């Protein structure tokens, strides 16, 4: 479980490096550590140092302990950088039917939103949306991929990286 999360983190870190390559300022970081020269308060800072997503068990929308830690860190970061509004995107894996998964993704987004609100984020800053099973990030035919797709992702609406 922990190993998989690191792999995701690593993949995301690589993607971010690609995104900023043109600026010739790829952050010096290790997958399991904090980025050293990510500019604080940026979208990159949020994704790399806070973590933008939480994961769910099959057909569940309960935020687990690890997810609660991530969301609490998101709430802290959002209180420091109050210029941001956010959209919480809820997703489901492909092993369900389409309509139900749309509602299940919405339920997950709502659960993440509610936890952020409980941690002090003003509800008016949060919008939610569900993509059901329509936007997978991992496409293998394996539970290791499906578990990465059962997620709620916090997206900064007005971020500059």
């Amino acid at each position, binding site marked *: 479980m922990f190993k998989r999360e690191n792999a995701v983190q690593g993949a995301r870190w690589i993607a971010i490096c690609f995104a900023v390559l043109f600026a010739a300022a790829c952050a010096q970081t290790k997958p399991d550590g904090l980025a050293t020269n990510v500019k604080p308060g940026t979208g990159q800072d949020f994704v790399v140092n806070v973590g933008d997503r939480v994961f769910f068990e099959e057909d569940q929308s309960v935020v687990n302990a690890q997810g609660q830690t991530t969301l609490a860190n998101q709430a802290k970061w959002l209180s420091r950088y109050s210029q941001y509004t956010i959209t919480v995107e809820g997703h489901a894996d492909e092993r369900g039917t*389409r*309509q*139900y998964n749309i509602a*299940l993704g919405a339920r997950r987004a709502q659960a993440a939103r509610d936890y952020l609100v409980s941690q002090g984020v003003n509800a008016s800053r949060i919008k939610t949306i569900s993509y059901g099973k329509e936007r*997978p990030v*991992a*496409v293998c035919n394996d539970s290791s991929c499906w578990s990465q797709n059962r997620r709620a992702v916090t997206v900064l609406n007005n971020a500059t990286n």
Partner: protein
Amino acid sequence: MRGILKKLSVLADRKSVGLAVLMALATVIAPRSASALVEIDITQGNIEPLPIALPSFSADGGDSKLAADMTSVIAGDLKRSGLFNPLDPASFIQKNMSVNSTPRFGDWRQISAQALVTGTVIKQADGRLRAEFRLWDVFAQEQMLGQQFYTTPENWRRLAHIISDAIYERLTGEKGYFDTRIVFVDETGAKDKRVKRLALMDQDGANVRYLTRGEDLVLTPRFSPTSQEITYMSYGGADPSVYLLNIETGQREIVGNFPGMTFAPRFSPDGQSVVMSLQQGGNANIFKMDLRSRQTTRLTNSAAIDTSPSFSPDAGQIVFESDRGGTQQLYVMNAGGGEAKRISFGPGRYSTPVWSPRGDLIAFTKQHQGRFMIGVMRPDGKGERILTEGYHNEGPAWSPNGRVLVFFRDTPGANGGPQVWTVDLTGYNEQRVETPAFASDPSWSPLID
């Protein structure tokens, strides 16, 4: 099958087929026999397909390719239904059939044909096509049906489907479903970056055209049972919402002004309202909107996911799925809402229910032990039958005569994707409908008028 005699009067009253759209006119060519021997008993499970001979329609010196193409569309329709076995033309003894002469029945008996179709299609001086066909009972040595049509040349495929429907109806006693279309979601691009477009095709996969361009994610299109309209879900607006689209005019509008995401739409049997889910926080509830008055009515109010509503054909009841009992199961309630009765009790999860246009069955998706199945049960929940089972089968929809189910079948992994399939109500005769790319969420049109 009983009731061939009754069918005769139905056919005599048959209205001009597609008069408005197609400008086709069906005329009865000759009186039909009341003593036909050929019939298909379609109440059985595994049906022995009826051997039928379809020699190429004659062109009388005109466009023989068109005549051959029309004949092969008819043969294709009948073959795909699983109820007919079009015989190999190489085996035919009598050649160069004319629609105007009586066949040499002995020649057709010898190759075991039970039914024979002769026809002609001619382009007239006024530019229109005139097509004529006769259906013969080889053993009774009598004509069972004869009709004549006029249409514009670009409608030749529809004309072939209309003839297929006439043959199907005469021999089975049920309405056909060949002159119909299927709306679906065309899927292209990598699995994590899918582009989805609404698309329309004839039921046999021909004449694909696209209704949206792919900028917006679109899902679950459903045909109106009464008009050339579809309702579907799109991510194009501020919230993902249910839309209406007129496929003739291209006119598009959002359905209702709901405070949040709406999804899983379906028309009422009269086409005058749409039922759908509205997401409210972590719960989804079912609402109905009257398309004329714009009035919305809440039909469920539960702390659960209530979705995929589908009306009974008499509009009196609605079947839907809900996880109010812990997992997805099927429930039936009165069309006005109120108390719902759970009808699915087998092992596994049940979803995407859709009521047969005949009223006697509800089709659904079922998940159990990692398998996805398409099944049917009676509206009281009894008599469950699984029609197909595999890695992923989802989202059945009925042919307008309630005989065939269309659904999509997905394959696993990064290169996997959905394809459209049909299966007979009996569970036999699975057929893939060829599409240009991956395709999902099929929904069948009514017979085109």
